[in-house]
């Protein structure tokens, strides 16, 4: 019963005895997408500076954060979801639900702080519900959050179908408040909130167990379970977080426009997903960074800025360019992951 064990010679690379002290820098494959986005951003910015007057002023960059604060916050939540290999389609609808609810409650004379806590709680709760359905009933995230989309949008339309103005003093004060960063460079509080969200999220992903579990689940959920990681808890937490971020986005929206409207944030979930993908977050999960998402949002924002500076271009070009970029980045992700597998 001797079996001749024909050991394959191919397919095995000799392991280089890596010296932990001396590490030659080579761009790790996982950084390639984010570096590509960064390069794209730099090229776009310099070409803007070269072609248009006043493009080089610091306020152009600072205003990117102000104008895209809502998208940035929502995309941060979306990054967590996509990192686990999921998707959250409900975020745009949660924004509209939040804005209408906020506006209605403030109109009814509720204390602003109570309204704030209430809507954030509601968004988180909806997210948690979606996460629970996805985890316990093994429903595809696409379907579960699609249901969430209809639900939230429906609630918003049920509350009020038309635009509701906000006359609350606190809301107005925050909306009109300006922060002076440097001489002549001012920004709004919502930009600071968005930036804080990015920094906190990046820290959570890099330095907490929860963050690392998110990556592990996205890499291989079965393995994560067998390694004893709290897969269910993490997954639900991720959707809760996304719901929270969407609600926060809605609050920022209502502050910025001092109104609430049920059609607000329509299709924003797709913008958020696009920003993640352009920022190098792998749609199959397990790879990507919040800073990539930030870059993705900056790219779309910069396209809009350039179009405004150009003046004679139709704003539809933003969408066309985003579409082309999406294609390019998805193909690039494909090529990079294929290289890793070989």
């Amino acid at each position, binding site marked *: *019963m*001797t*079996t*001749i*064990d*024909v*050991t*394959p*010679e*191919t*397919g*095995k*690379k000799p*392991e280089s*005895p*890596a010296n*932990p002290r001396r*590490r030659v820098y080579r761009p*790790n*494959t*996982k950084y390639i997408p984010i570096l590509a986005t960064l390069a794209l951003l730099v090229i776009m910015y310099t070409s803007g500076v070269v072609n248009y007057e006043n493009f080089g002023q610091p306020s152009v960059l600072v205003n990117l954060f102000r104008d895209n604060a809502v998208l940035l916050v929502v995309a941060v939540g979306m990054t967590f979801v996509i990192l686990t290999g999921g998707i959250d389609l409900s975020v745009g609808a949660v924004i509209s639900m939040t804005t209408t609810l906020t506006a209605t409650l403030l109109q009814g004379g509720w204390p602003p702080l109570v309204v704030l806590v209430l809507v954030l709680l509601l968004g988180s709760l909806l997210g948690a519900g979606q996460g629970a359905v996805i985890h316990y009933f093994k429903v595809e995230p696409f379907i579960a959050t699609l249901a969430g989309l209809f639900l939230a949008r429906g609630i918003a339309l049920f509350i009020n179908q038309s635009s509701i103005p906000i006359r609350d003093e606190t809301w107005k004060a925050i909306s009109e408040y300006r922060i002076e960063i440097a001489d002549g460079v001012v920004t709004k509080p919502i930009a600071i909130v968005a930036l804080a969200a990015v920094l906190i999220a990046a820290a959570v992903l*890099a*330095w*907490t*167990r929860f963050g*690392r*579990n998110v*990556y*592990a689940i*996205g*890499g*291989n959920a*079965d*393995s*994560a*379970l*067998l*390694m*004893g*990681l*709290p897969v269910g808890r993490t997954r639900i937490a991720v959707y809760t977080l996304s719901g929270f971020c969407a609600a926060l986005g809605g609050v920022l929206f209502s502050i910025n426009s001092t109104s609430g409207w049920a059609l607000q944030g329509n299709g924003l979930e797709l913008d958020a997903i696009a920003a993640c993908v352009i920022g190098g977050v792998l749609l199959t999960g*397990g*790879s990507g960074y919040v800073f990539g998402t930030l870059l993705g949002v900056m790219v779309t924002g910069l396209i809009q800025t350039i179009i405004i500076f150009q003046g004679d271009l139709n704003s539809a070009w933003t969408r066309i360019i985003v579409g082309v970029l999406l294609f390019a980045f998805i193909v690039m992700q494909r090529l990079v992951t294929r290289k*890793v*597998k070989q």
Partner: protein
Amino acid sequence: MTGIRKVFPGVVALDGVDFRLFPGEIHALMGENGAGKSTLIKVLTGVYEIDGGDIKLAGEPVRISGPLQAQQVGVSTVYQEVNLCTNLSVAENIFIGREPRRFGRIQWGVMRRRAAELLGRLDLNLDVSAPLSTYSLAIQQMVAIARAVDVSARVLILDEPTSSLDSSEVEQLFAVMRRLKADGVAILFVSHFLDQIYEVSDRLTVLRNGQLIGEYRTAELPQVQLVEKMIGKELAALEDLEDKAQRTREKAAEAKPVIEARGLGRTGAIAPYDLTIHEGEVVGLAGLLGSGRTELARLLFGADKADEGELRVAGKPVNLRSPQLAMKRGIAFSSENRRTEGIIGDLSVRENIILALQASRGWTRPIPRKRQDEIVEKYIKALQIRPADPERPVRNLSGGNQQKVLLARWLITEPKLLIIDEPTRGIDVGAKAEIQKLVAELSDGGMAVLFVSAELEEVLRLSHKIEVLRDRRLVEELENTSDVDADRIMRTIASGATS
């Protein structure tokens, strides 16, 4: 620790199995595929809940409700497929879920240093911050073991850890296992390689059909007896085959050629080769993995397009541009990748078997259900597919039985030439013998068979003629006479053409 004991009355997968594991021993769990080894392991690690019986750990009754809890009580597992996250770094894979923290913040430096230390103890020197996917499967396996050892040092379960390692890596693994054993760790070891079992294990437990056959000291149980206990029948079936191949050889030489290849080749896949297969002849393809075995076979089936040479089927020149054309001419190809290219796990046994026949008829002419049932029943019986339930999803069958379903699929198209690529890989001894016997019978019935296998013994046992491949080139054709043995073929593989 007095040992683990468990009883499962009335359950199909495990029927009242007792199992004891002592600290400081390497205990092998033996049995064919489907004997209940995996179930037992999954019960131990909390993936499955037990329906009866009890588990004691160090004399204390425990209830293991999940992998995390299993780890907490000291039971860690390394599975056959490496269950790690390849997108994370080596260090993270070892420590995830247990990262060293300070004020809730993961201390990456401490983690990397401890990972390097731990791997150093296993004589591994890796860049622990590199993603796991940059390392070979063998290294990934070692990392999995390092994790398991570090998580808990009481019970370590190794489920087929050696199937992806080469011999020096196996030695390294065994060295690690022996060191852990000396430290008082109880190791449960599962392997299909009997030699490895005898090399490293102290005791072994044999399971068959979910039942306990017995527990033995490895040194006191000869290999032949062990195999008999595993499959529950004598090995005579295998012995028979030797004579059969010898007997039919003369006849085969006079038969008409089914397929002739002249200078057939494909750049980058296989150098041009000549090959003739006659009716009732079994031609074996021998060579290392990656030597071009599969590539050669795929050209004959039209799965890849040849870019030079000519091919004759039944004497007529043909151009096989696609598998459909090859099937029309009576060529069937059973793929080596049972799971990805052959079996459709969610379809039933019946649907899987009918697939190829239906495809050759065209989808516009469905086969009547009654006729389907007849055919399927006949082949389930003929090939002894177990369980003999045509409506069961194929996913739930063991590897050997999936292979039989795949064979049945091609057999009902009544091919003139059957190409089978690695039909016996990853299946157990008993099913292997049955499939080999089947091939021999088919060739007796006049079918030409091209048999591709990495196991030389198997090729030798079945083939009338052996084609030896090396570096994507057909280097030698050997008539399988009594003076041809594994050594002879190995020499050719090692040195190139000798004649």
